[in-house]
């Protein structure tokens, strides 16, 4: 049994609740004991870093300071929160004046996808799979923040990552080579410039269909409503992401 701190973030308690359910299910199967961070608050997301440099650090660091009480890694399934945490941890070292209270920064922050792709968990996943994904052709979609900026994420092959493909193949699926796996879907503009998000998501979905994919697999919450919203045509189920609809 491995103990980790779990930061769900606002979306996994709301619009991405099925991601929370599957994340908890997989963790339990692999013997990962999730301790939800007590009293957590929003990481500040895009809005904080677009508004003020100190607020963008202070909001995530409040959570990281609570996590520092425990000698555990912190798992973050939402890629936007993950990105804010790793950025704030670095910024806090350079700019301690942004913070109101001292912060040690000893907790390591792990993105859920990376965590499950590591040995020995990926081997355990292979041993414990119950329903192989055989016959399914998958286009793995990483998006931006799971890989960029590589100085912070530590992802070596940030233009053409392949760790999600390894995970899907271990589960029995066939993965496809395709061009848009790290292209931006524009998620941060979803409420304001929906036209841009629709255009970008459609471009990604069209390429996946052209590649021959049965579905896109994503490892983060926000891609789902957007991809669903922008399936090539309403009612064409082959154009919608299987994970969400």
């Amino acid at each position, binding site marked *: 049994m491995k103990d980790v701190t779990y930061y769900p973030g*606002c*979306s996994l*308690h*709301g*619009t*991405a*609740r099925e991601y929370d359910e599957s994340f908890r299910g997989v963790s339990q199967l692999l013997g990962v004991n999730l301790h939800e961070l007590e*009293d*957590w*608050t*929003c990481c*500040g*997301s*895009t*809005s*904080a*870093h*677009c*508004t*003020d*440099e*100190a*607020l*963008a650090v*202070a*909001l995530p660091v*409040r959570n990281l300071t609570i996590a520092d009480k425990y000698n555990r890694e912190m798992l973050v399934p939402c890629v936007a929160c993950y990105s804010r945490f790793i950025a704030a941890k670095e910024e806090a070292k350079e*700019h301690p*004046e*942004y*913070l*109101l209270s001292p912060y040690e920064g000893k907790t390591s922050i792990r993105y859920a996808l990376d965590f499950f792709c590591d040995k020995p968990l990926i081997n355990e996943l292979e041993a414990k799979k119950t329903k192989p994904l055989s016959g399914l052709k998958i286009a793995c979609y990483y998006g*931006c*923040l799971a890989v*960029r*900026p*590589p100085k912070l994420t530590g992802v070596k092959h*940030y233009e053409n990552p392949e760790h999600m493909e390894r995970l899907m193949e271990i589960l029995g699926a066939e993965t496809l080579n395709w061009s848009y796996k790290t*292209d*931006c879907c*524009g*998620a*941060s*503009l979803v*409420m*304001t*410039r*929906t036209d*841009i998000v629709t255009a*970008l998501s459609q471009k990604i979905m069209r390429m996946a269909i052209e590649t021959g994919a049965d579905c896109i697999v994503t490892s983060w919450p926000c891609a789902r*409503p957007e991809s669903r*919203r922008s399936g090539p045509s309403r009612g064409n189920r082959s154009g919608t992401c299987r994970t969400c609809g």
Partner: protein
Amino acid sequence: MNLSEAQNNTFLEEVVEASNVNLQACYQCQKCSAGCPVVAAMDIMPNQVVRQIQYGRREKVLASKTIWICASCHTCSVRCPNDIDIAKVMDTLRHLSLKSGLKAGEGEIPIFHSVFLDSIKATGRIHELSLILRFKLRTRDFLKDAALGWEMFRRGKIKVMPQSFTGGRDIKEIFSAYEKGHGR
């Protein structure tokens, strides 16, 4: 630009100091703009933003659409051959734009950010329903996304009530420091 303008380029100094990014390393290869996924919606391209800053054109840059359209995908920063962190510069320009009092080039985007932060201040965690309602009240556009909103509600993805929240004092302190300009 004449020589006296060049010697008084406080805007370049302001951006370089706030972002800690060496913008003068740019040789206009346009790699940033070539890889930018949202360049089509911008009024000045990312490489032009760098040039305009070098020229000291504060208002043109801070009132541009570009700084708000930038989706912070970091593709430009990752691919820049001179290691210029353009995504970070875009953040700095948004901060300066908000402080400048200039009219933002994109109306709804800064409003959304301000509503989002109000939501954190009020409930600690984002309660999507109240966030959307606050945003709609500010933009007066009630019909857009209504069908999608209903679909998400039907699937139990939108909670009616905010979650209970106990970190109020910390959040209040963080926001009060922000409102007083702490750390800047």
